[in-house]
Every structure is written in C-alpha cells, then in structure tokens.
C-alpha cells in the first residue's frame, strides 16, 4: 500500500502538476513569470542571504545529480570506492546544505524584520521559504549528523534507482520501503516542493538566461514583426 500510494501515485501526481501547471502559467499567465526580487526594499541582508542560498542550492543540485541520477555502477566502474564517495558527499553536501539553510534563515528573518519587505511577502513566499527550509534542513541533518553518527546510508542502492525508475514509467517502489524514515520524509517533502513550484515565484529558476553571453549586445525589433506568430492568441 505504501509502495503504491507514496512511492508511485504521489510522485506522479506531483510531477504532473509540476509540468502541466508550469506550462499553463508560462503560456497563459506569462506576465507573472519573474524572479521575485525585493532588492529595491532592502539590500544588506539580501546580499548575504540570496547569494549564500543560491550558490548553496546550485551546489546541492549538482550533488543530487551525482548522488541520485548517476547510478552506483558508474562510480564502481570508475574505481571510486564507497568510502571515498561518502567522504566527498558528506563534506561537499554538508557544506552546500549549510549554505542553503543559512541563506534561507537570513532570507526568512529579513522577510519579517523589514516592514517594506514584509508588506510585500505573500503567503506563497512564506510557504516556499518554510518548505525549502524543511527540505534543506532535513537534508543537511541527514548528511552531516545521521550519516556520521548512525550510518553512512547507501541511498545509491535504494532512492537513486527508484527515482530513476520513475522516468522510465516502471517504478520499482518496493525499493523505498526499507529506507530510513528521515530520508522518506525528505523525499516526500521534496515532491511537495516540486508540485508547488508552478504556483510560487520559484518558476524563475527555469528562466536562467543562458543565451545572454552569446547574443548580440544590442537588440532591434521591428514593430511590425512583434508577435507576428501570436496573432490568434489575443
């Protein structure tokens, strides 16, 4: 039952919401698609909070790629033994996790200590930060405390293969049953976070302007050409 509901149905529901609602918002509510900057109201705390958080989350993202998406067989064939892997994961992941958590705490404190920022923080903004804090806090705890005091848990044999199997539409949910509860909670909350992305300002992460360095500095557009192919939408 748990395997079916929590590790098969739930992830697919979250994934569907993520994809469908993201496209819906991009297409029909495009003007709400931005980075949620409040820099104009306050700079000092944002400087620390935002930079530490964002660089932290990018490291953490790369870490998850390495831990969850890359199969353990790849490491074995490269000759990276488990011990080396875990040392790297714990040090690197712990560092990234701490950055994320610290950054989020800064951002959260900033949200209710500066009246101008506070007045323009919606329920969605608090929800995002608190949920991120829960996910990242748990993740960091697992990495730094659990892994070193209880056991260096080998998620590359359970969570990793299960997560990848979701993409092949052939979920091996049974793998998740034996996972420690802490890890389970982390995974469930993460999926909730994914599902909430299209409803919050988090959508800005999909718009990272990768093409900027290669495009021409000056942009010209003809008035006539503007939205030429969008004719029927309006």
């Amino acid at each position: 039952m748990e395997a079916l509901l929590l590790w098969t149905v739930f992830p697919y529901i979250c994934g569907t919401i993520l994809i469908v609602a993201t496209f819906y918002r991009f297409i029909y509510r495009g003007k709400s698609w931005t980075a949620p900057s409040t820099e104009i109201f306050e700079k000092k705390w944002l400087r620390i909070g935002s930079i530490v958080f964002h660089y932290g989350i990018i490291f953490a993202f790369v870490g998850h790629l390495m831990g969850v998406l890359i199969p353990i067989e790849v490491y074995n064939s490269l000759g990276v033994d488990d011990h080396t892997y875990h040392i790297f994961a714990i040090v690197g992941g712990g560092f990234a996790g701490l950055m994320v958590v610290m950054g989020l705490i800064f951002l959260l404190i900033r949200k209710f200590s500066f009246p101008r920022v506070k007045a323009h923080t919606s329920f969605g903004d608090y929800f995002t930060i608190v949920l991120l804090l829960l996910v990242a806090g748990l993740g960091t705890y697992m990495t730094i405390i659990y892994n070193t005091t209880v056991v260096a848990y080998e998620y590359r044999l359970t969570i990793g293969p299960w997560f990848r199997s979701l993409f092949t539409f052939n979920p091996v949910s049974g793998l998740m049953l034996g996972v420690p509860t802490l890890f389970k909670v982390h995974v469930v909350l993460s999926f909730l976070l994914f599902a909430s992305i299209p409803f919050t300002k988090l959508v800005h992460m999909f718009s990272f302007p990768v093409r900027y360095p290669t495009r021409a500095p000056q942009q010209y557009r003809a008035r006539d050409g503007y939205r030429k192919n969008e004719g029927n939408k309006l």
Partner: protein
Amino acid sequence: MKIKAQVAMVMHLDKCIGCHTCSVTCKNVWTNRPGMEYVWYNNVETRPGPGYPKSWEDTDRYKGGWTLRNGRLHLKAGGPISKLANIFYNPNMAEMDDFYEPWTYDYQNLIKSPRKENIPVARPKSMITGDYIDKPTWGSNWDDDLAGGSEVVPMDPNVQKLQEHIAMEYEKTFMMYLPRICEHCLNPSCVASCPSGALYKRDEDGIVLVDQDACRGWRFCTNGCPYHKVYYNWNTHKAEKCNFCYPRTEAGLPTVCSETCVGRIRYIGVLLYDADKVKEAASVEDPKDLYESQLSVFLDPFDPEVIAKAEEQGINRSWIESAQESPVYKMAMKWKIALPLHPEYRTLPMVWYVPPLSPIMSHITNESQLSAEGYIPAVDDMRIPMQYLASLLSADDTTVIRKVLLKMAAMRVHMRAKTVGGIDDMKKSKLLQEADITIEELEDMARLLGVAKYNERFVIPTGRREMDEDLHYKQGACSIEDLAPPEGMVTYPFERSEGL
C-alpha cells in the same frame, strides 16, 4: 549604410519654468499604479542638485553606461559573464531610499474624525507599507528650487567635480531646471544589460521598450542605464520605462510631456541615422569627441543618396519629409545649438538640450548701454560656471558650450537690434563673427525657439503601418492592452492582485 529613423527630442532649457506639469501629466498617464508610485518617467530636477534618484550621475556607484577598454566598449557594470555570476544580488542597484518612499495622505481622517478640540489633519502614509510616516525626509523634488541649500547641493556629482567654489548665498548662486526622460539612446546600455533580451530598440522609430512578456526581473537594466531611467516595478517584479508615448507618436501626436509643457520648451522630430556607424561612434578614444562623433552618425535628409537609400530600405516619403522639416535636425545639426546630455556615458542619447542663457543675461545690469561685444565677456563670465554646463552637456569641453551660448547671445542681440533698436551694427558684427552664424540663421532660430507653433515644434509622421501585413486583424486593437488592461493588472499566477 543601414539607415534607420528615430523620433528624437530637444528641450530648450531657457524656457523651462520648472512647473513640473510634464512630470504630473506623464505620471497620470503612465505610472500611477501599484508598484510604480515612486517612478517618474519624466522628472524635472533643479540644478545644481542631486537629481532623481539621488546622485544618479555617480557612475562609480551605479555603474551605468559604457567604458572604453583597449578601444573596445564594455558595460561599466560588467559583461554578461560577470552579470550571470552576480544575478542573485545586483550590487549596483539603487534602493528605494535613493528614490524616495512614496506616500499619500490619510484624507479619510478629515471626513471621519469625531468632533474634537484640534483640527483633524491628514497624516502622511507610506504607499509601500501602509504605515504612517511621521516625518518624510526625502521626495522626488525635495530640493526643488535649491530648497536643500548647501546641505544638498554638494550631493551633485557635477558640483563635486568643479574646481571653483559654488556660492550658495542666494544672491550669488545660480539655478537651472533640467527636465529628463529616457534618452532612447542609439547605443543603449540598458538593452545590452538585459540578460533576457527583453529590452529592445524599435527599427521604425528608435523607441527603446521593455517587452513585458520577456522581462524576468533580473534588474541589471535599472542601474545599467547611466541616466537611471529604467525602473523596477515591485508589484509586477518587472522593469518599466519611458516609452516615448509611442501610442501617441504612432498617431503623429507628441508625447504627453511635450504636449502639456507649459514653457513649450520641447521639440520632437525625426533624425535619420546610420546604424552601421553607431558602435564606432561610441568607441572614440577621447570622451570630448563623442559629441562630434554622434553628429557624424546622423544623416543629411536632403542628400539625394541618403534619400534613395532610405527609400530602398523601407523608410517612406512622409518619414523622409519629416526628417527634412525636423526641428531636432535644425537645432542639433544645422545650427548646432542642441547638445547631448552626458555624452561621456557613450550611449549616444537622443534627447538633446539647448543650454540656458538667461541666468547669464540676468547678470548683466545695464543691458541698454551695453555694446554688442559686451556680451562676449558676459558669456565667458557667466553666473552658471561654464564648467558646470560642460559637465552636463559636453563631457567637460567648455569650448562647445561657449560656442552655443555665443550663438544664443548673438540671436538675442540681433533680435533686439531689429525690434527695439539701439544696438550698434558695427559692433554687432564682431559678435556674429565670433558666434560663427549668419543673420538668416539667427532669424530662423529666433522663430523656432521663440514663436514656433505646434506644427513646427512637433513634426511627427504617423507610424509606418502600411508595411503591416495583417492590418485588418489589428484594427481596433490596443497595443498596450496587456500592460494596463481595463480590469487591472494580474500579478500573481492564479489569483487577482488588489494592490495596496
């Protein structure tokens, strides 16, 4: 030669009376909505003074515009790679306090207050937080007419540069107004600063716009513009800027600020320019050469070759004719009395200024006895230090300013001789010679600057709609429907925003 046309503006500073009508009408049309309360697409600042936002000319702080390194143009705030690395926090962006915290008044209290001993007052109330502000400390024209005196004037970066001391005693000091809008530059650094490519310059009329669908709120344009004329709307989290009232200019009407200008200081006309030469012109080594190099980008609308090329490239007759009639062309190119604001930013701005003469003239006490040459030392020894005007309008080159002021003085002397008399013709000629201008030109100038009617001040061809393929479909459509729909702006993804 890639010919493009631009609707450009000239402001004749002598005639600005600092009434702020332009700012108010602009605000009423474009920026009185949540998120934009602190924004003035058009503002009029008293100079010397810090302007709006405070000390916007401090390019070391806001890092706007371009710099030249090894002969190549670079964004002063850093190129694309450094921008992407700084994208989570923009170190050079202005804060709200650099503008001001907008407020309204609690008018309801005047109506609802119970009977009491003291008269009820309308307390100022922040439009950002909704809290009362007991004591506003800065506003968009806090220092109007030198109100800040010696406390505020030194915040003006042009003043900091001056060698000589500026007297702040009221009987000795000087003052002028500087109305500002977006310059709709030929080499806009706002456009180059935008990681999303949301800012663009229109082919047809050179107006620089922000695509509200493409803007992602990365905010590098706000301080990337050295004139600080792109603003962050905190409600929609996107950038917005002066759009040269394009729905009006497309219909052949002047911008709202120009239409309503009480002093009639504004002129709008078409300039033809060679888009291929823009980059080169912006990259000349010495900032003092930028004025001349920008002039070299403009094309002569009477030159048959230019006309033929322009037509070939899709610029129609009415635009070419407008370019020939253009008051801007006359002032900038023919008489050379209009100058670009801060050419050293290398954006090649397209709103130019005729520097003010009147504060000099009020310095002359016995004008009726003055011989014509008497004006020459008056120009050199004017109350507004020439360096101050040069710092604004010619990258510190006082010879450029002097030339313009001599022309303006010559015009004054000539017209005075003609209408009132009492000026010795022989002596007048020396001034004319020094000013390097003919009588006919002076009289044309006097007409355009003094008496020109609406149709001479605003020569604006209608938008080139004949090239639109689906005119039938666009019939009756409003080009700004999305930006300000009648039912209000939707800012949150799945709910309706009510503003404050």
